[in-house]
């Protein structure tokens, strides 16, 4: 497959891993965060962490759209799904996320009309095919999926579709990174930047990481060599005492992102004053809601949702996993009470979640000795 196979070349991977070994100083511990759940998945699928020196530790970041949805929002979604006549639509991952009293799948089993879609446009299509029933789209995701929701809403408005509503849970990537950098829990040496969010927002929004916090970041692709190359770039910066934003994924990420997508997003969405993240609490200006021009399509305005803040289950440590404070296998219920078949926490539900990546690729436990 063109533009994929050349980034999976095992021989070159071994060379890169060897060079990484040559870059690290013995006795120094390196903690690098891969922000995006897609990277976590690649790291465990391809065994990248096995190729790294023992003193290079990868910690998993908050960049998994399903994982960061707090329980209260799931409950709000389920309440909407139970409204009379409502057809509730969402991405497949979301169906299995537990709320305080069951999942959307459970609500479906109880009779709510809940349908899985691949794109918000599918939800709009359902709305047009059922003009006498309200159709709610439960929107989740970072800046990668927000443009598709924005365009769908714009189109619904242009076509005068009156029965299409959106419960907006879109979030932005910069505020949680800032929250992590401000947090005393975690001392990070550098970041593997989120490749696909950057296709929309560009590289510029990450400049605060080197300028304000003095940490290097390399925006990276998702193939195994991309991740190794990004690690090499970050460690080279650390060795040379440099600290800047580098773009390992230049083949896909333009410096300015996709200006058209940003323009449509700014027309359809506005920032919420604060939004709750699972395990991270409320973060200022980190979530999007529909702008005033789209208020008549905002499900949270048109319907009353409970809007109650629900604490995460006591046994679940998704919050610590999302902040990189613990590894998935260090969670008390990992692989026992919480499995992909019967998840307790979001990180085990989503295919991009760190716990699911560990579980699916057999990383049940892993102690590494630090040199």
């Amino acid at each position, binding site marked *: 497959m063109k533009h994929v196979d050349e980034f999976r070349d095992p021989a070159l991977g071994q060379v890169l891993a060897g060079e990484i070994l040559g870059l690290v100083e013995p006795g120094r511990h390196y903690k690098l965060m891969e922000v995006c759940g897609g990277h976590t998945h690649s790291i465990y699928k391809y065994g990248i962490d096995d190729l790294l020196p023992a003193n290079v530790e990868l910690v998993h970041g908050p960049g998994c759209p399903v994982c960061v949805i707090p329980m209260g929002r799931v409950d709000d979604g389920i309440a909407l799904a139970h409204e009379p006549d409502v057809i509730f639509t969402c991405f497949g991952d979301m169906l299995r996320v537990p709320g305080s009293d069951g999942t959307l799948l459970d609500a479906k089993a109880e009779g709510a009309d809940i349908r899985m879609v691949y794109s918000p446009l599918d939800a709009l299509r359902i709305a047009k095919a059922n003009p006498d029933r309200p159709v709610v789209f439960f929107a989740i995701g970072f800046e990668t999926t927000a443009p*598709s929701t924005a365009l769908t809403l714009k189109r619904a408005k242009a076509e005068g579709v009156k029965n299409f509503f959106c419960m907006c849970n879109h979030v932005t990537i910069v505020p949680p990174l800032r929250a992590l950098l401000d947090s005393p829990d975690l001392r990070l040496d550098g970041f593997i930047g989120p490749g696909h969010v950057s296709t929309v927002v560009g590289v510029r929004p990450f400049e605060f990481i080197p300028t304000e916090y003095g940490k290097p970041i390399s925006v990276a692709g998702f193939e195994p060599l991309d991740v190794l*190359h990004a690690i090499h770039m970050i460690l080279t910066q650390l060795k040379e005492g440099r600290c800047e934003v580098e773009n390992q994924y230049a*083949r*896909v990420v333009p410096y300015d992102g996709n200006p058209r997508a940003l323009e449509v997003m700014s027309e359809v969405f506005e920032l919420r004053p604060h939004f709750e993240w699972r395990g991270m609490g409320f973060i200022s200006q980190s979530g999007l809601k529909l702008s005033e021009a789209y208020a008549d399509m905002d499900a949270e305005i048109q319907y009353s949702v409970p809007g109650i803040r629900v604490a995460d289950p006591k046994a679940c440590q998704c919050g610590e996993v999302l902040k990189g404070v613990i590894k998935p296998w260090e969670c008390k219920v990992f692989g026992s009470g919480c499995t992909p078949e019967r998840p307790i926490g979001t990180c085990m539900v989503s295919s991009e979640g760190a716990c699911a990546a560990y579980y699916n690729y057999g990383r049940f436990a892993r102690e590494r000795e630090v040199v």
Partner: protein
Amino acid sequence: MCLGIPGRIVRRWVQDDGAILAEADFAGELRTVRLNYLPDLQVGDFTIVHAGFALTKLDPDEAARTTALMRDVGLLGPEGDEPLVVPADWIDRPAP
């Protein structure tokens, strides 16, 4: 949502309502893609798609440059010696 692989545009057309659509080949699987955010994509271009929308065009020159950079890493290691190669049985070895 973030595991996009590049798809190659094999067909492109404009709908009656002005929307630009394309058919893209993702490793043999054909999917319809909307080009609202990248109206200039042409047949033969590679693109990354999220939730049905093409968000970025893959730049083949940059792809070649990145693979060349990776190869250079191996040729010009920290000491300028022969590249260090991690052997296949690395996992079973003790930490250095």
